[in-house]
């Protein structure tokens, strides 16, 4: 186990810089998820940590050792690839023991290391099969087994669940999390799926266009996004955003462009007159009150009801625990939970409210 540190890491492909100075501290044993839309540089960052990409500037440390120029095999890390990268010409057991065999470990010892790992992942009955003969989930487990057997300092996962179907993805998510709780190995996990990030991480790093947008515990990011990007990226359905400004006479009232008046409990240092964005999550609406919505679509999911509606001219989504029988065009009276409202600068995207 070891900590991982990125210090102002930059990456350029030719003249195009894709990472503009990324600094992240990862403590020993932490499960850190790098999340962001495709092209944000998260995979590149992971591959730089693995030693598969050259580091243009800055430093990457594993433990207290700078690894910038170390080849991958000397970094003592294991990686699970998106396509699993299992060797197709050798069996599951040989795949899992490949790194040990290269190290010259004896056959007996390899077996004694591979079989408990296989046991842990439920692969014992598949050890003699070839990768082709396995299902997607089994291949995924073999890839993890190959990583576990080596007992590395750090585990790297590069979008490991994106090739699986939705149901399997949920169960593998739990399995990976379980595995981490048992082995307590430092883990860096890359995904574009914010649900994966929210459910698995000790710490989430949200990346956007080659910079770190925010670092924090999952619920901190959810409850207090530092900027518009994180606010819009984390959470599903996404946060509703309405443009407008604070009322000049009452800073606890937000006036939208259409003249709707919405409540806000803690506007912080925000000053009236400036163009701002009022953000409220779908579940922070309650039925009954004095804000009027014009219903467009009602989507019952069973446990809750999603309502797509217009607030003035802005389309928003609300989630209610109640079942609602409104139809398109109906009016719906709601109350916004003024304490859960976020305020952002419209131009810079920075958080203004407390």
């Amino acid at each position: 186990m070891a900590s991982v540190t990125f210090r102002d890491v930059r990456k350029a492909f030719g003249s195009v810089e894709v990472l503009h100075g990324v600094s992240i501290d990862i403590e020993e044993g932490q499960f850190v998820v790098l999340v962001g839309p495709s092209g944000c540089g998260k995979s590149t960052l992971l591959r730089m940590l693995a030693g598969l990409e050259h580091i243009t500037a800055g430093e990457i440390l594993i433990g207290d050792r700078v690894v910038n120029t170390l080849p991958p095999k000397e970094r003592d890390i294991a990686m699970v690839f998106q396509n699993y990268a299992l060797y197709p010409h050798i069996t599951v057991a040989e795949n899992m023991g490949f790194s040990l065999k290269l190290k010259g470990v004896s056959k007996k010892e390899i077996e004694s290391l591979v079989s408990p790992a296989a046991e842990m992942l439920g692969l014992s009955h598949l050890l003699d099969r070839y990768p082709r003969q396995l299902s997607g989930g089994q291949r995924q487990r073999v890839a993890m087994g190959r990583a576990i057997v080596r007992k590395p300092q750090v585990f790297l996962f590069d979008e490991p669940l994106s090739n699986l179907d939705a149901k399997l993805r949920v169960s593998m998510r739990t399995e990976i999390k379980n595995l981490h709780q048992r082995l307590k190995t430092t883990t860096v996990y890359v995904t574009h799926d914010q649900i994966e990030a929210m459910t698995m991480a000790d710490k989430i790093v949200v990346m956007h266009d080659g910079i770190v947008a925010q670092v924090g515990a999952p619920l901190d990011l959810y409850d207090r996004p530092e900027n518009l990007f994180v606010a819009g990226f984390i959470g599903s359905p996404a946060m509703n955003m309405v443009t407008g400004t604070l009322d000049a006479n009452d800073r606890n009232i937000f006036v939208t462009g259409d003249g709707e008046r919405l409540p806000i409990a803690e506007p912080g240092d925000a000053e009236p007159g400036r163009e701002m964005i009022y953000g409220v999550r779908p579940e922070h609406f309650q039925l009954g009150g004095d804000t009027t919505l014009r219903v467009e679509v009602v989507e019952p999911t069973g446990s809750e009801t999603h309502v797509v509606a217009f607030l003035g001219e802005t389309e928003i989504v609300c989630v209610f625990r109640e079942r609602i029988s409104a139809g398109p065009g109906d009016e719906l009276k709601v109350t916004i939970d003024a304490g859960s409202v976020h305020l952002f600068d419209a131009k810079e995207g920075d958080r203004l409210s407390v």
Partner: protein
Amino acid sequence: MTDVPLTPRRPLLARFLESRNGLGLLFMLPAAVFLLCFLTYPLGLGVWLGFTDTRIGRTGEFIGLENYIWLFDDPIFWLSVYNTILYTVVASVLKFGLGLWLALILNEHLPFKTFFRAIILLPWVVPTVLSALAFWWIYDSQFSIISWVLMQWGLIDTPINFLGQPNHARASVIAANVWRGIPFVAISLLAGLQTIPQSLNEAAALDGATSWQRFTKVTLPLLTPIIAVVMTFSVLFTFTDFQLIYVLTRGGPVNATHLMATLSFQRAIPGGQLGEGAAIAVAMIPFLLAAILFSFFGLQRRRWQQGND
């Protein structure tokens, strides 16, 4: 009750043309005619001629195995068999080694990669006779550029007699064949290399493999199916080679470079002994069959290639 309309029985031809099998047969016909006329018939005729004493201008009679018994005692025939095997084995090994090496280089990130890939194909694109003529000049006993360069460097005093001495001639024709055959091997293996996902090499690098181990433990095993196909074809092409030898040496000096194909032609057409020439050609069949059988077993799907997906 409504009347069930009676459909009149349609003409046989119309029914035939509309049936699945009839139409299929019709579509197969051109290919079948082509195969029968240009492959089966000549092959059958060749085998038949081998059992006759046909000469040019005279229909022969069936003489059974007499041609083969005659060839069995013919030292020139056995020399050509030896030459053919030597030629095939040495040229194929060299083509494989150099072709694989080139393919590996071209698979790396090189500047002007596509340009080099195109250039590599040149020897394969140039008509054989043309390249053979070029080699004829390169190997000329007086004006050879190789001799000239070596003499300029002071390594030799007199020009090398490339095509005049048996072993020199053998080495020279093999070199020319290798030059011509490398593009096929290199480009095919390059195509094979590109089907190996980059992530496998990366995974092996993380697993602690050196670049040599990545080659022997990952790349090479995954390439074996392609290697088997490519080398089967390469061996077949080389074994039946004719043009290069015929332009460069015509089998000389003193039959030292006669391959079975050139000897067969020599005896049959300029020599007029069609029956004997055909018998030599037929004698190649067992060797070719052996090569095909070898590749058949070599090409069988390996266990790791089987399964779902």
